[in-house]
């Protein structure tokens, strides 16, 4: 048996997962998913949302299984207590004992992002927002963020909002509160002096249609690896490719 890859001390591993074209969705191997995941995958009204969800969760199980050196179906999840209210809807976590392994998953319209670290981490990926949506949503942000967005030329606001929002949601997921902590509370704009202390933020390039970000508790990671999961890793027999990827040497 190969030694567990368990994430290296201080490292941040990021995985991008690109969903297949709908015509190729039949190649996705659903056998690693549990009954609840399969039921949820079938519940989406838009087939493309179901494919995105399915791709993301196959990838998550295979990636975590590779780090933990267990078969993907045996990865068991729980919710940590919410730091706000103590109820079990905080950060998702794996149930197995062992060295700390924190993860975060996000998916949106064909793209998914997984973050793995030895300390709390949150990730978010979002499709570029529409201008009308940005106009309606901007007043819900932190006053400093609103002012900075309003000062931009109108055509630049959607991209700025999208990047800002992914930072905010990644931070709130890392914190464990999610959006139960209001989007107006924290400043995640360009001024480092106003951002929450004790976290490192990363803007993640996610292609021409999406924004992405990660938030890592503490200082900058010793190493950061961003990988694109091969399409075949989501197919039958694709687990080996994921395992090999987790054991590649880190590049700073």
């Amino acid at each position, binding site marked *: 048996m190969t030694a567990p890859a368990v994430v290296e001390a201080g490292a941040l591993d990021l995985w991008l997962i690109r*969903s297949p074209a709908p015509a190729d969705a039949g190649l996705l191997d659903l056998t690693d998913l549990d009954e609840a995941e399969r039921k949820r995958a079938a519940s989406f009204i838009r087939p493309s949302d179901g494919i995105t969800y399915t791709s993301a969760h196959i990838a998550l199980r295979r990636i975590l299984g590779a780090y933990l050196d267990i078969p993907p179906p045996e990865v068991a999840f729980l919710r940590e207590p919410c730091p706000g209210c103590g109820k079990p809807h905080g950060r998702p976590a794996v149930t197995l004992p062992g060295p700390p392994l924190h993860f975060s998953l996000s998916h949106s*319209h064909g793209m998914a992002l997984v973050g793995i670290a030895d300390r709390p981490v949150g990730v978010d990926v979002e499709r570029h927002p529409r201008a009308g949506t940005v106009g309606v949503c901007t007043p819900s942000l932190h006053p400093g963020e609103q002012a900075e967005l309003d000062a931009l030329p109108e055509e630049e606001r959607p991209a700025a909002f999208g990047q800002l929002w992914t930072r905010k949601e990644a931070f709130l997921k890392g914190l464990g509160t999610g959006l139960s902590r209001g989007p107006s509370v924290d400043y995640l704009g360009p001024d480092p002096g106003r951002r929450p202390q004790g976290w490192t933020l990363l803007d993640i390039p996610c292609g021409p249609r999406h924004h992405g970000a990660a938030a890592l508790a503490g200082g900058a990671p010793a190493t950061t690896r961003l990988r694109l999961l091969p399409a075949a890793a989501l197919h039958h027999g694709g687990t080996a490719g994921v395992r090999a990827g987790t054991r590649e040497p880190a590049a700073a």
Partner: protein
Amino acid sequence: MTLLAIPVPADWDLDLADDYDDDLPPAGATAPEQDVVAPDPEDLAAVGRGERTALLDAYVRGELGRVLHVAPGSIDVAGRTMNSLGVGSINGLELQARMEAALGIVIDLQRLLRANSAAELIDCLAGQLGPEDSPHKSAARRGTGTPAAAA
């Protein structure tokens, strides 16, 4: 808080099939968004629970149809979670902002996103906007304390 940027190898193909944007208007489309008329909160408070629920059902369908780009009448409000309908964090924030502005109440974003169905949201709105005492109602009015559950 430090902000880092990560480069991406030039040979990565991160574009996707257009099917993943099938809920967006076609490129170049200039047709204005369909307007959604919200019921007057005073009118809602003046009618019975059944009529209030029906008015809010029509309104919430309209808002969902606008953000999801689907026909309001086609939305399964009873049998699917908000997430399964296609409501994510950004369009959920849009829904929250539009409904709060139109109805003059506070809606908890996290609860909206986690609602088991749109019907659950509609039922809670009917409770908040009615004349009768409701556990949601006193705190739900804008500026009167803790944001109330909306779902």
